[in-house]
């Protein structure tokens, strides 16, 4: 039988039972739609994580104290005993591939301004911190090298903190109390948004690390050192130079492990996207279960159809249809169902993911890959679940099929 004729007769057979064909397709439509939408949302998450991480600033390296193997971006605090200000100074002086450096420490606490208060983290940084992170100041000034050296009690507020403590706006020059230590506000940071972990990066206060250390934490070591390489190409060079220098300064024997870790952008992106990839795979595999269920629906309907049309099969065989003609006819019917369902499902998935990202303010990206994937999937479902009923029809004996009541 010619392909065109098979197609024509399949369409006729499906149109004869419009409602049933539609309901069968609905399984595939929902399955494919769900796969497309879930992939779009997962990939949207991946994309926004990458975006946010690169918002950290380019060419950035972060040195953490302690051996860091677990793959998390942040190191556990317990081992944070090995980075000193002298290490930071040495890196600045002896690593030519390093351009800017900002030693860092951290404190948390209650902040009071007038009769308002707010609890947040205080980031102790160097004067080049904002340069490294490419984070402009919204108004006011940032503290200088002098402020850092002198451990002056000045601070710069993140947007969220500023909004909560000074709803009226006029705040430069005002005093706030951080854990009862008075600090003078000299500026406000521009809005940065959420970081890859979902933290509000604007819910922060920056102050000279020397001041934070001396007035708030009394902790003698650094929590991290932020460094920017001279260029992207210099990142590995800088990493090597820092590593060698720190191993020497910390007197680490040749085959011993580092007691610090250096992470670059690529590492951070890789770790973070690995998490979102798992999310994507998880979402998509849950969605493909519904595609599977849709496939079983096709099989069910095709089996019913074969039984119902046994006489038709017998008539076709009696006028010369071969087994493969019957096989082709039922397989094509299953394929038409799943392909049509696939097409509609793709449209449905695209609409659904747009709606979700509009409502949830979450980016969604429909890639050609996900369309091809789910389309291929629905073809496979059609063939896989259509084959058994089609074969059952094709293997009937002509006379048994004709006599079937």
């Amino acid at each position, binding site marked *: 039988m010619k392909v065109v004729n098979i197609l024509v007769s399949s369409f006729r057979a499906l149109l004869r039972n419009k409602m049933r064909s539609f309901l069968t397709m609905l399984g595939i439509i929902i399955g494919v739609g769900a796969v497309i939408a879930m992939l779009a949302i997962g990939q949207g998450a991946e994309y926004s994580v990458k975006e946010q991480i690169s918002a950290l600033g380019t060419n950035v390296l972060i040195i953490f104290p302690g051996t860091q193997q677990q793959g998390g971006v942040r190191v556990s605090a317990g081992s944070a005993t090995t980075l000193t200000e002298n290490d930071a100074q040495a890196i600045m002086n002896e690593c030519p591939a390093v351009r800017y450096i900002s030693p860092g420490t951290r404190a948390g606490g209650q902040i009071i301004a007038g009769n308002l208060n707010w609890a947040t983290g205080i980031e102790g940084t160097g004067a080049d911190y904002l340069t490294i992170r490419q984070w402009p100041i919204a108004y006011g000034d940032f503290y200088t090298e002098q402020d850092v050296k002198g451990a002056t009690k000045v601070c710069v507020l993140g947007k969220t903190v500023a909004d909560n403590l000074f709803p009226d706006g006029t705040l430069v020059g005002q005093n706030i109390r951080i854990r009862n230590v008075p600090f003078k506000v000299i500026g406000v940071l521009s809005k940065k948004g959420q970081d890859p972990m979902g933290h509000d990066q604007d819910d922060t206060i920056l102050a000279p690390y020397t001041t934070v250390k001396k007035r708030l934490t009394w902790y003698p070591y650094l929590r991290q050192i932020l460094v920017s390489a001279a260029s992207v190409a210099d990142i590995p060079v800088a990493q090597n130079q820092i590593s060698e220098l720190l191993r020497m300064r910390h007197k680490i024997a040749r085959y011993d492990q580092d007691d610090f870790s250096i992470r670059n952008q690529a590492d951070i992106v890789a770790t973070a996207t690995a998490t979102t990839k798992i999310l994507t795979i998880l979402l998509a595999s849950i969605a493909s279960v519904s595609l599977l269920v849709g496939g079983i629906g096709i099989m069910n309907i095709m089996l019913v159809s074969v039984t119902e049309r046994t006489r038709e099969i017998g008539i076709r065989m009696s*006028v*010369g249809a*071969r087994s493969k003609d019957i096989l082709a006819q039922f397989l094509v019917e299953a394929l038409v169902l799943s392909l049509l369902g696939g097409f509609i499902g793709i449209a449905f998935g695209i609409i659904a993911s747009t709606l979700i990202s509009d409502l949830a303010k979450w980016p969604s990206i429909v890639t050609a890959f996900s369309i091809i994937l789910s389309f291929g999937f629905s073809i496979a479902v059609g063939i896989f679940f259509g084959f058994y009923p089609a074969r059952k029809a094709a293997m009937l004996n002509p006379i048994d099929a004709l006599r079937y009541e």
Partner: protein
Amino acid sequence: MDASLSTIPPPDGLLIRVEHLTKVYKLGDFEVHALRGISVEVKQGEFLAIMGASGSGKSTFMNILGCLDIPSKGNYFLEDVDVSRLSRDELARIRNTKIGFVFQGFNLLSRTSAIENVELPLLYCSTSNKVRHQKAISALERVGLGDRIHHYPNQLSGGQQQRVSLARALVNDPKIVLADEPTGNLDSRTSIEVIGIFQQLNRHGITIILVTHNPEIAQFANRHVNFRDGKIKSDQINPNPKSAVEVLKNLPPENPEDEL
């Protein structure tokens, strides 16, 4: 295979040779002997009527002749080809090109127009859409249904439906038309009209094998074979078969409601 199938019939015009054909149906440990050794020869151009009591194995025999069923034992040669050695696909090809089958219950595809029903056999051999269409129309015209080609089976009378199935049987120019009680569901006048078409086909050289319970109908055939208990009881030539055209002429005029 194709080459041997399309050979010209042997000089003696022998079309069908059946030897010691038996058919046993097994129902659990119970056996039904539907055919108990049938041997018969049919020549090209014969018009054979098979008769016999209900359950004597006529339909079983016809289904084997039509390659719809296979015998338990015995040989069936169609144009000197041993049919019992053929594969499923080769049997399908024989059904498609050599045999036209007409059933008592018409066996038309419902919700499919007359012309599409008639085109069905041509879908399973390589025929262009145009040729297929033309052949189907001329087959329908041959059975007198040229004006009903787009009607659906449920819009046709029993006689008309049987004509459609006859048109389907002959659309592929078969050697043999096998008809299992084709007039069983028809009134006597319509029966004779349908038999008339068989006679006309027979005059064009198509071999007809027809099962009937009606001795009147058998009078139109030129050979009578009687079945009893899965065996052939008698096999006689009918020296002067009736002509359907003549009989119809002598019948009272057509019932106006029965618009054939």
